[in-house]
C-alpha cells in the first residue's frame, strides 16, 4: 500500500518558522527518551510492549515508535489526568494492577502470561477488557472497561500520537508557532503542509512533500 502522505516528514520543519525554541526542546527531549524500563519492572515493561503491539500496531515500521518507553516516562514523571474514579488508585498503581490482572486473566484462559500469547489471543482478551467482561479478583475492584479506555489504551494511544513519526503518518501539519497557517478553506494547503497522494500519483505528492520546510 502506498502511504497516504508519501515523502512527508514533519521533522523537516524543525528548523523552520513553524517551530519555536520551546517546541524544539520538548520534541528533542521526547525523541531522546531513554530505552528500557525505569518506572516499570522488566517483566511489566515487556507486557506493556505486548499491549502496545495490539493497541497501535506498527508491524512494518523500520524504526518503530517506542510506545512502552513513552508510557514509562510519563508514569515515572508522575503524570496524572486530573481525576480518578472512586475506588481507583493513582495511575502508576492502577497500571501495575492492570498488568498483573491481564497476566492472571491470560493464565486462567490460556495457561500463559499475557505477553506470551498469540496476537489473536491478546486481541481476544483486550476485546473482553474493553467490554468490561474481565473480572478476575486480580483487578481488585477496578472496572476493566474503565482501565482500558481511560488508562491503558488511552496512555498507549497518547504516547503513539505524541511522536513525530505518527504525525507524519497522518499528514498533520505539526507544530505551528510562530508561523501558523494562511490557507484555511476547503481543499486548501499551505506549502508547508503535508501533500496527500491524489489519483494514485505518489510522485507528485513526494515532490511537494520534499519541499516542506
Amino acid at each position, binding site marked *: 500500500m502506498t502511504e497516504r502522505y508519501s515523502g512527508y516528514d514533519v521533522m523537516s520543519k524543525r528548523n523552520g518558522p513553524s517551530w519555536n525554541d520551546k517546541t524544539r526542546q520538548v520534541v528533542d527531549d521526547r525523541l531522546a527518551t531513554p530505552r528500557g524500563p525505569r518506572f516499570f519492572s522488566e517483566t511489566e515493561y515487556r507486557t506493556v510492549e505486548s499491549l502496545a503491539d495490539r493497541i497501535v500496531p506498527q508491524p512494518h515500521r523500520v524504526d518503530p515508535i517506542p510506545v512502552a518507553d513513552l508510557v514509562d516516562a510519563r508514569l515515572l514523571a508522575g503524570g496524572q489526568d486530573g481525576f480518578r474514579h472512586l475506588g481507583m488508585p*493513582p495511575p502508576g498503581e492502577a497500571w501495575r494492577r492492570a498488568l498483573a490482572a491481564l497476566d492472571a486473566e491470560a493464565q486462567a484462559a490460556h495457561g500463559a502470561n499475557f505477553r506470551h500469547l498469540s496476537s489473536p489471543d491478546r486481541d481476544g482478551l483486550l476485546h473482553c477488557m474493553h467490554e468490561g467482561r474481565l473480572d478476575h479478583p486480580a483487578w481488585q475492584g477496578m472496572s476493566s472497561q474503565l482501565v482500558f479506555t481511560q488508562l491503558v489504551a488511552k496512555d498507549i494511544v497518547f504516547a503513539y500520537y505524541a511522536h513525530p513519526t505518527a504525525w507524519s503518518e497522518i499528514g498533520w501539519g505539526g507544530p505551528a508557532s510562530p508561523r*501558523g497557517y494562511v490557507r484555511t478553506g476547503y481543499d486548501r494547503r499551505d506549502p508547508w503542509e503535508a501533500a496527500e497522494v491524489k489519483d494514485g500519483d505518489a510522485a507528485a505528492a513526494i515532490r511537494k512533500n520534499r519541499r516542506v520546510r
Partner: protein
Amino acid sequence: MSDDPMQTPRATKGRAPDVFMPGGWVPMREYREDEKVDFVIVGTGAGGGTLACKLAEAGFSVVAMDAGPYWRPLEDFASDESHQSKLYWTDDRIVDGLNPLQLGSNNSGKSVGGSTVHFAMVSLRFRPEWFKSRSKLGYGFDWPLDWREMWAYYREVEDALAISGPVNYPWGPPRPRYPYRAHQLNAAALALAEGCEAMGIPWTETPIATLSAPRGRARPCVYRGFCVLGCSTNAKQSALVTWIPRAIAAGAEIRDLAMVGRVEVDRSDRATGVHYHRNGNWRFQRARNVVVAGYAIETPRLLLNSASDRFPEGLANSSGLVGKYITVQSNQAVWGTSDKEIRSYKSPPSLALTEHWNYEDEGKDFHGGYCYMSQGPEPQLWANTLLSGRGLWGDALVSEMQNYNHVVGLKMVGEMLPQERNAVTLADETDQYGLPIPCVTYSWCDNDRAMIDHALGFMGQALRATDARDIWEQTDDTCHLNGGARMGDDPRTSVVDADCRSWDIPNLWICDGSVFPTVGGVNPSLTIQAIACRTGDRIAAMARRGEL
C-alpha cells in the same frame, strides 16, 4: 535559583513576568503579609483575574493568589499536546455518580489566568430569559440579576478583550457590532455553515477572544490552532494577557504558586485573611475582605476545608448549598469524513456556530437550549476520541487516523439542569499540601438526555447535508463547570447575593462560575467576566457609601 515557573515563583522582588516579552519583567507593587490589604483574591481566572483588575483600578489594595505558575507564553508554550498539559489542574480529584465527569484537560486550569489560558475563546452572551428561567421559561432557578444590566457588562468585557465577531448577530435583542472584525472561516466552519443553510437555520461567525488585528503589544491570530493548549503568540485574550497586566499596572500584587488552604474567620464571624502555601511553607496574608474565585470545584472545596468551631459545615454554608448544584454542559458531537481536505487543525477550533436551539423553543421536548459549533481536534485528542467515543483500537484505529485531515464535526454546548445531588464533597484522602481532596459526583437527568438526543439528531442531519459520510455520534462528553455556591435573593436557598457577597460572612465574597444558578446553552467565560465587572463596580459603590 530555578527558572522553572512550575517550581519557583516568578512574581517576587517587586516585579512580575512581562507576558509580552521573553525574559521580560514589569514592576509590581508588593504588600506585607501583616498589612491588612483591602482584598485578597483566591484565583486569577475569568472571575478572580477580572475582579483583581476592577478592584485595583478602583483604588483598592489587592493581592491575588493562584496555585498555578506565571507563564510568559512566548517563551514557555510549545506547539505540543503532551507538554501543554502543564496548563491543566491535574491534582488528585475523585469522580463519582452515574455519569462521572472527566476533569483536567478541558475544564480545569492551573495557571495565573486560570482556565482562560487554555479556553477555546468562544465568547457568547446569555439569552436574556435565562436570567429568569424559572419565571419566564419554567425550569431551573431565577438569577438575582437583570439581563439589561448584564448586557452593559457584556459590552465592557467584549471591549476589554477586543472580541472578534460578526457585524450582525442573528439572535436575541440588538447588540452593538463586535470591536474587531470576524476571522476568515476555515473549512470546518464552512461545513457548519453549509449544514445550517441546508437545515434552514441561521449561523454566524463565532464571537471569539482572539485578535483579528494588532492590539497594543499583542499580535493578531496566525491560525496556528492549538488554542485549547495555550496560545504561544498572545493573540488569545486570556486573563493572563488582559486583566492581569491591567491589575498590576493599577497596583495589584499577583502571587503565583500560592495554594490557599484555608480562609480564617474570627470570633465576630468576619474573615481575617487566608492561609496559603508558597515556597514550601504555610503563610498567612491578612485582609479586610476575602474573595474566593477558584472555580466550581476548588471554591466549594476551600469553603468546606475552612470549617471551624463556629462554622462546622464550612464557611458561607448556612443554606447547606455549598458544593451543591454543580452543573456542567453537555458536549456531544457528530463526526464524519469529507471527500474534501478539511485540515481542521488550522485556525481556532470553533469559528462558526448556531444558537438556533437556544432561542427557538418550538418543537422541543425538553427544557433549556444548546448551541453547536465547528471543531478542530489536534491528533492526540482526536485519537482518544476515536478510542473512547467510537471504541476503535488496533489496526482499526491506526487506519481511521489516516482520515484525520478529512474529519469534520459539529459539537454542542448544552444546558444541563441544576440538580442538588450533583455535588462537590470532601474525600478522606489528602493532596500534596495535606488538604482533603474533592470528590465530584455527577449524574445526568432525563431532561439532559432528551436534549442530547435532540442535538445529536439535528447535528447529524446537518452534517449529512454536507458531503460528509461515515457519520457517527460521540455520546459521552461534558464541558465547563459551574454552580456549587449559587447566587440568589434568599439566604435560605443561595450562598451569595447578587453582588457575590456571602450571606453569612459579610466580608467574604465568591466571584467565579460557581455562583451560576443555571448554566444556559453557551460557554460561560463571558458571563463570569461580566459578573466580575459588575461585582467590582458594586463593591466600589458600596465602599463609597460605607457599606463594606
